[in-house]
């Protein structure tokens, strides 16, 4: 017993000594660019940005980039506190949207970089629907007049399909909405559920929102996302979306038992070849390239729609407390260069200023060409959960009701309207 006590005392003493000297250190002798992001090292962004760091250091002798990989959750929960302290980084990745970058901008924690954006010509590289999520107004609503961030990459939704299953049942890749539903009918007749879905997370609401977008136009999106006008959840677009989604469940396009599934389940079910189609984001693309080995797959855009889900990716933001703003802008400039953008594309990402001609892999090329088609047609319709904090959960609950059939479409839409309007009155619109 005595021995144990002595050991403990020694341990405690050592621990205290260590923690006492841990406080200091980290003095800034030479120049340092403190950079944080939360992309994994082998993702498209991780690879491209690592290269950008190398090029930045080569171009700025005497400056060291001090990079730290952060967790998404930590950034989400602590960003306002970190940016309000002297430990803020010089440049960091942050989520686009009203509740995230918009909120920080409104609180005055981000640098307004409008002058820099026009001086360096980044605004010319970014199509309007991508730039929209980088600009915020005084209330922190996107689509404003001041640039608070610069996106490097974009994301959009498309239908991933299993070529082998399409061939097996003799189904052609649909180019119109009619062909799309006919293809699904054929799959159902053969006893195959055509769409992979997850009711407990974002996939279900993205099907629903896409159906609404196919009957909507850009002003409709502006009203919904940027509060530019009254939003009616019983207008033709929403009514069509809810009724059609309901129909699709009844017809068996979407499995009833998908109501409790997570996005990860829906995605891996596609990898396992259990579903011929999965409508989801370009964030799956790199993973599918690496992990799908047993069948051929490809993608097509949702047919017969002027708008589809998508937006810019996350933003580079420069905190108000950044000590090296000019270096931060230099770094952003390097990430916008063609070589870095194409490196992003080569690794399965969607660059905002890429050049399809410089991308080797034909599938990656198509990914970028599809994006450019959408961007040039101003066809990015953003995401349904953006307008209000915690609206995501409202949408999840609503679509789950549609999947299980526990509530009729009109009452689900009432539920959306209630939560949406509550938020409107909260933010004073």
């Amino acid at each position: 017993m005595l021995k144990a006590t002595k050991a403990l005392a020694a341990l405690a003493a050592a621990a205290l000594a260590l923690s006492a000297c841990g406080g200091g250190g980290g003095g800034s002798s030479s120049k340092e660019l403190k950079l944080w992001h939360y992309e994994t090292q082998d993702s498209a962004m991780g690879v491209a940005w690592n290269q950008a760091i190398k090029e930045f250091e080569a171009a700025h002798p005497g400056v060291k980039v001090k990079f730290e990989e952060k967790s998404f959750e930590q950034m989400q929960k602590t960003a306002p506190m970190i940016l309000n302290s002297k430990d803020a980084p010089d440049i960091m990745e942050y989520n686009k949207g009203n509740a995230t970058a918009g909120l920080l901008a409104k609180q005055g924690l981000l640098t307004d970089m409008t002058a820099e954006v026009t001086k360096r010509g980044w605004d010319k590289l970014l199509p309007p629907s991508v730039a929209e999520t980088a600009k915020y107004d005084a209330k922190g609503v996107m689509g404003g007049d001041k640039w608070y961030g610069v996106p490097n990459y974009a994301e959009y939704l498309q239908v991933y399909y299993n070529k082998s299953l399409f061939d097996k049942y003799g189904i052609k890749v649909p180019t119109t909405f009619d062909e799309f539903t006919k293809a699904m009918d054929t799959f159902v007749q053969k006893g195959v559920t055509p769409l992979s879905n997850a009711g407990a997370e974002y996939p279900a609401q993205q099907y629903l929102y896409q159906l609404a977008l196919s009957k909507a136009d850009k002003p409709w999106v502006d009203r919904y996302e940027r509060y530019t006008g009254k939003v009616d959840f019983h207008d033709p677009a929403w009514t069509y979306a809810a009724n059609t989604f309901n129909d699709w469940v009844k017809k068996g396009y979407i499995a009833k038992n998908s109501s409790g599934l997570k996005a990860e389940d829906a995605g891996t079910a596609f990898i396992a070849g259990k579903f011929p189609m999965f409508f989801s984001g370009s964030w799956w693309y790199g993973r599918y390239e690496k992990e799908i080995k047993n069948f051929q797959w490809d993608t097509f855009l949702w047919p017969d729609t002027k708008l589809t889900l998508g937006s810019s990716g996350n933003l580079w933001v420069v905190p108000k407390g950044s000590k090296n703003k000019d270096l931060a802008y230099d770094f952003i400039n390097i990430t916008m260069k063609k070589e870095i953008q194409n490196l992003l594309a080569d690794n399965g990402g969607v660059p905002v200023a890429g050049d399809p001609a410089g991308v080797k892999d034909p599938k990656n090329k198509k990914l970028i060409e599809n994006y450019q088609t959408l961007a040039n047609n101003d066809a990015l319709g953003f995401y349904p959960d953006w307008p209000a904090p915690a609206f995501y959960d409202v949408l999840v609950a609503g679509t789950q009701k549609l999947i299980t059939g526990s509530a009729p479409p009109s009452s689900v839409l009432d539920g959306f309207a209630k939560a949406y309007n509550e938020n409107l009155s909260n933010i004073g619109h």
Partner: protein
Amino acid sequence: MSSISVKRGTSAAHRRTPGAWAVLLALAVLAVVMLLPFVIITFNAFKTPAEYSSHGPLSVPKGFYLQGIKDFWNRVDFGAKLVNSLIISGSVAVLAVILSVLNSYALGIGRIKGRVWILVLFLLANTMPQEVLVYPLYFLSKKVDLYDTRLSVIIIFTAIQTAFGTYLLSSVLSTFPREILEAARMDGAGRFRILWRVVVPISRPTLGVLFVFFFIWTWNEFFLPMIFLISNENQTVPVALGVLQGQKMMDATMTSASALLGIIPAVVFFLIFQRTLTRGITVGAVK
């Protein structure tokens, strides 16, 4: 009395009654239920990502894939995180036990005025969710220049654990045999001497249990360390595990690998101090 119970015990071991079998079966089922998550985590830790995606989480791994664990170790510099966690949990456990002893000596044995209210206060502090504490603690630590240091987390958790320790230890010490204290006083021992030579040695098993619990509780803390340790070089093990939970992606195999790495230290610690734990409980029971 004791000989009878021993006899009954040995005979029961030879031929079990149906009731004993039922208890045994229930315990076995419970053990399987408790261990199953660990088995699944271990399975997935040794799978390649492609294998996981195409065969699902429940399949048995085909090979012994160590890359996930290696990659994770290097990616978050796991060795440094272990040292951080050890420093923080170790310091908190020691400091919180010392403070708890001092507090409860005054409250439980010293019986100072208003001790009931003080205990109620501690109890209330214990029920406070950590989310409520975040902002005040954040502003305080910024004021004294301790934001983003391990020392801030040590101080915070020492206070939190001490609140519980004081509450528990005070009620234990309030039943401390008065005769022993009287005898010590007769022999001319002062207050400090009584504490150090009499109270602490006798309640050492209880203190051991508190130490182990404080260590493991602090080790597993996620929320406050995540907020106060923003630099990667200061982070603890549970915060480092969070890196793998992406915005839209989760890397299930690497997450399993990291979870495996994350629980091993706590399990090892438990095994080392297991005897202290059981002894603490039995001694308390006899008393």
